[in-house]
């Protein structure tokens, strides 16, 4: 099995004719994802690459195709509205790839989504991939393979690095989720841990966090109470100076809070194997009894 996305995912792409949207839609289709529709206002009635129907609104797309998930590739200033539109149209899952969404917008988006019972992954994230089943977002399919490891991460390329190490050692993945590097995100570590713990095919979990905030600490406490599968974790930013935003809007040490040290200590305390570097992932998983 997998979490959030699988063979039943019927995807609508918001911003399908844009530069990023069109490139990644091609990649998603090539990977085998069931892309049923695209949305670009004003291009309704056309077809993307002469196969995927384009609609003016997400509501039209859902009504015509039964899409149950959406992925957003629109510029940041349109992203919040795109999320509202997807929620209003009735999809259950929204994956927002767009980077640079104002945090105040997210404070309004989140209660709206809760009221509508919609899950958001992101914003500012690479999306999710369930190897062999579906890919929603931008994670390169070539570095993944089917298997039993669940991966959840706040990062993009660092996730690829770790997944690449897993795949090379024969450890495939059930689902890899990039939850995004922003301070306010729709799906957090705990949501993913809950999914991986409940998923019978997931046999081990890898968690990749970074400096800033307290999500990793809370996830560690959750792990201690609810996760019985082997789990290892990494925190990026051990050498980051306080008070500076390290690329990701959420990656900032404020005062004494949000340091890598504090997060790694929480991992240790709660039974999560602490990776000191990305290359530790495979040996640590094996040490904890995980096998490919």
């Amino acid at each position, binding site marked *: 099995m997998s979490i959030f996305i699988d063979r039943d995912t019927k995807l609508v792409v918001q911003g399908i004719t844009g530069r990023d949207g069109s490139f990644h839609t091609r990649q998603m289709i090539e990977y085998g994802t069931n892309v049923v529709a695209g949305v670009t206002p004003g291009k309704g009635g056309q077809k993307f690459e002469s196969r995927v129907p384009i609609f003016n609104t997400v509501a039209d797309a859902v009504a015509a195709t039964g899409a149950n998930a959406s992925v957003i590739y629109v510029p940041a200033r349109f992203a919040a509205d795109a999320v509202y539109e997807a929620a209003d149209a009735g999809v259950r899952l929204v994956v927002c790839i767009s980077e640079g969404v104002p945090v105040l917008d997210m404070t309004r988006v989140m209660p709206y989504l809760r009221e509508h019972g919609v899950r958001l992954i992101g914003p500012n994230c690479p999306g999710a991939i369930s190897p062999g089943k579906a890919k929603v977002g931008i994670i390169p399919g070539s570095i993944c393979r089917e298997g039993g490891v669940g991966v959840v991460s706040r990062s993009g390329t660092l996730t690829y690095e770790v997944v690449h190490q897993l795949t090379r050692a024969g450890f495939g993945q059930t689902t890899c989720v990039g939850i995004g590097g922003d301070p306010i995100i729709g799906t957090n570590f705990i949501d993913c841990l809950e999914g991986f713990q409940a998923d019978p095919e997931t046999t081990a979990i890898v968690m990749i966090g970074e400096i800033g905030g307290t999500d990793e600490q809370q996830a560690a406490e959750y792990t201690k109470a609810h996760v019985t599968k082997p789990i290892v974790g990494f925190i990026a930013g051990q050498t980051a100076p306080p008070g500076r935003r390290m690329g990701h809007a959420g990656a900032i040490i404020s005062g004494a809070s949000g340091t890598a040290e504090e997060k790694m200590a929480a991992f240790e305390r709660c039974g999560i194997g602490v990776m000191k*570097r990305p290359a530790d992932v495979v040996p640590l998983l094996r040490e904890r009894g995980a096998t490919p």
Partner: protein
Amino acid sequence: MNLHEYQARGLLKAAGIPVPDGDVATTPAEAEAIATRLGGTVVVKAQVHAGGRGKAGGVKLAKNAKEAREHASKILGMTIKGLTVEKVLVVPAADIATESYAGVILDRASQRPVFMVSPAGGVDIEEVAAKTPEKIMKLGVDPRYGLLSHQAMQLAFFLYTDLGQVRAAAKILQQLYRAFVDAGASLAEINPLVTTPDGAVVALDAKIGVDDNELERKPAIAALRDASSENPAEVKAREAGLSFIKLDGAVGCCVNGAGLAMATMDLVKYYGGEPANFLDIGGSSNPDKVVTALEIITSDPNVKAILFNIFGGITRCDDVANGIVTATGRTKLKVPMVIRLTGTNEELAVQILQKAGFSALTDMDEAVERAVELAGRTA
């Protein structure tokens, strides 16, 4: 992006909050003129993006205009935590009866703006939170409705007992919330919020931090950016669409993706070196970005070796390779370079680099270890 105190004061004033008179000066003569206009004792305050200005000698009391000029001439040009003071704020020295704290932040955990007020103002609020948390009242705001009147009153009653002051403070808190939203802030605080001996409630010092993601749609706020108060290399990087932070080590790092960039710095440290910088060239990088990145890294005299760590996903390794070849063709490198590329178009990249006389590694650990060795172990 952080605003200067005088800029934050201006935004609060525009929102209707009572702030003392005063103005900003870039020369001692201007400071003297402002002090003359204000009359009486004034405070001369350095305008830099650094805490602890007072301790560093950047805040001085002046009994008259002549003294204000003298203080300004000392403070202007001084460096506080590596930043040169180019402006001073001159304000009247206030008579203070009580000092409180009022602030609103974007709280990650509750995913909403949260107000914090404390009657223990004028000091570092994090210290108050750590030592005497009972002296802080917190209140989450539903951003769809804003700070409601009764919520503002509830917060104000935590600060004052006099009903006139409570009402005045409640009004200020609602105005502060409006200023926070209008600025696209992630933090807006008044510290201290004072009462004067005649009972007025006044904002004496203000701090506003803006969410960088807001700047595109708020040009008036974006225009407040003071590039002179930032590291020039960081300004150049930002203008080129790169995310760069200067550090003090000898290994110059150029990486795609913020998480991988941090992990690369960490690995440099793991192998006994120190990173010279954080540098994320971003997702869909073109060769021009790589050229600028190399220029920035090589302009740092501390850099003894350069490390490229690229995991090609959306970023194509051949784009990065072309950038490296172009940049090194323009200006010859004076320090050794280690290149690690893996992922999309890796083979093509290796060919491009080999033709130009470079070799590339595919393993991250191997590359970092090699770069640290070349830079000479610093730790």
